[in-house]
């Protein structure tokens, strides 16, 4: 039973109105939290596109976060490129990186792909921390970002978030999406039917790289400071894994719910420094045991509810 179309539309409209008007009535702190949620939704949706729908579990998405962030820093600081254009550039350099490594990475299957992507991210981290141009491990301040207003950055994040969710939704309803789900269900059968697996996965890989790079740009617009080990660090993937597993892998709504829970938990637990991560770890393990499809996945299984239905009826 899917929510009836008009109800769904109203729900989405109300939600959007809430989000769009936030800077007008909410505190600066709340808007910041909202921005973080938007960015994590974007990042998680892209991770989910790869892992949940294309069957590519990547432990190295942080390579695009780091690259996108540094592109922003370098192009706005050294080349004086307008700040939002620099964000866009971050997306493009990420795609270029994705194309370059695809030669190597697409030959790796399953867990090897996971490790390979992780190692590439680590390698990039080392390169950047040894590179004088970007000030080694000390990191860079992104000066032009000081002047930006909180609302400006927030709207950038919101637009990105809404577009990426919409993109994933439309993608999955398109022929590409049909192909992806066929591949996910049965690799060999779909290949026999003429689905070009490589092309499908490649396109998804590029899309996720692009959007992740953009999100990184907005992220560092907000953070204003970038450091190599943090930017290319595995913690990004840890957090995305957490979000997607809790929300529900292979669903469109999963990353959204997961991101909200994650950011709120993060804020709530920031007071219990030291214990907070232990609690995170325990929650993650608990979810795997008791609700392996994540909250959204389990709900979908039990009630057939879908906010963004992608299966054809």
């Amino acid at each position, binding site marked *: 039973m899917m929510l009836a179309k008009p109800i769904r539309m109203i729900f989405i409209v109300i939600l959007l109105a809430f989000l769009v008007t936030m800077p007008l009535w909410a505190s600066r702190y709340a808007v910041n939290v909202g921005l973080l949620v938007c960015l994590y939704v974007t990042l998680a949706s892209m991770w989910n596109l790869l*892992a949940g729908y294309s069957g590519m*579990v990547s432990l190295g998405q942080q390579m695009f976060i780091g690259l996108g962030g540094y592109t922003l820093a370098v192009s706005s600081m050294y080349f004086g490129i307008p700040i939002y254009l620099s964000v866009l550039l971050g997306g493009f350099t990420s795609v270029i990186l994705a194309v370059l490594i695809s030669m*190597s*990475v697409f*030959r*790796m*299957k*399953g*867990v*090897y792909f*996971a*490790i*390979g992507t*992780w*190692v*590439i991210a*680590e*390698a990039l981290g*080392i*390169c950047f*921390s*040894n590179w004088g141009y970007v000030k080694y491990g000390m990191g860079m301040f992104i000066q032009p970002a000081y002047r930006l207003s909180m609302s400006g950055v927030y709207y950038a994040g919101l637009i990105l978030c809404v577009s990426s969710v919409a993109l994933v939704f439309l993608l999955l309803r398109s022929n590409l999406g049909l192909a992806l789900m066929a591949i996910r269900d049965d690799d060999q059968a779909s290949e026999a039917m003429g689905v070009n697996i490589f092309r499908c996965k490649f396109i998804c890989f590029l899309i996720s790289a692009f959007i992740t790079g953009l999100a990184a740009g907005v992220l560092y617009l907000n953070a204003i400071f970038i450091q190599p080990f943090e930017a290319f660090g*595995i913690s990004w993937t*840890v957090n995305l*894994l*957490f979000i997607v*597993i809790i929300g529900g*892998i292979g669903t469109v709504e999963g990353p959204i719910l997961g991101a909200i829970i994650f950011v709120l938990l993060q804020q709530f637990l920031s007071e219990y420094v*030291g*214990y907070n*991560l*232990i609690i*995170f*770890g*325990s929650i*993650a*393990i608990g979810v*795997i*045991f008791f609700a*392996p499809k994540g909250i959204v996945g389990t709900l979908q299984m039990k009630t057939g509810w879908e906010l963004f239905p992608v299966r054809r009826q």
Partner: protein
Amino acid sequence: MIEYLEPLINGILLGGLYGVVGIGLSMVFGIMRQVNLAHGELMILSSYFSLLFIQVLGLHPLVTLILVAPIMFFIGYLIQVLLFNRVMQRGMEPFLMISFGLSIIIQNALLLIFTPDARSLETTMVIKGVDVFGWFNIPLIYLVNFAVGALVLTALHQFMKRTYTGWAINASADNETAAKLMGINVNKVYAYALGIAAVTAAISGVLVGMSFTFYPHSGTQYLIIAFGVVIIGGLGSLPGTFLGGLVLGVSQLFGGRILGPGFQLLSGYIILLIILTVRPQGILGGR
């Protein structure tokens, strides 16, 4: 020419240690087809246990292994029984996530208890060295690492080849169904396997603690080394893991010599990526 001899020899010796670091991961990877992201933390946990016993009982680091090894076997066994056995059949992601959750818990528990200060297991073996014809110095600890490494790998190889439990572990990895039909309790076998993996983690943890400084977060870097070793050497091959360790150790030190100390890890990563691309089953891999 001679200046390349030092990184070569030290690389080989370091490689022996790396072999032991990797063997625990290789067992879990090769036998249960799962990736244990908490392997590095099991190592560092052992280092901290050793630290405790040194401080409280005044033992030499290597001697603490008598206590640390059984404790870690027990911990590994429990982890498999309580956590991992529940999700063995569910594909890659749940196991990844549980082991990651576990690694986060261990890392932060260590952080809380022991603070982020750098630690090491004090031993004069780091300072004492062997002079090679007056050209360069080999730290004694490197020789000890290599010797212990070779010993552990040989012992484990013999265990897997000659004992019922060893055969049972191999059989379960080859074909779980047939193994059950032999009267093998496969879940128990997996628990033994993780216990053994934890013991090798304990040994490598103590050796690592003696050779280098460690922090609560050091587990991650050794996890990557373990991956490197296993992938380069080949899945499911004990001699392969040893070989993988040697290749990684030599690449690291050579790379560090040629490109600079900051690029030591990077050189290892590059070799790893090449193998992943060109021959993912590793040099001696088969299964």
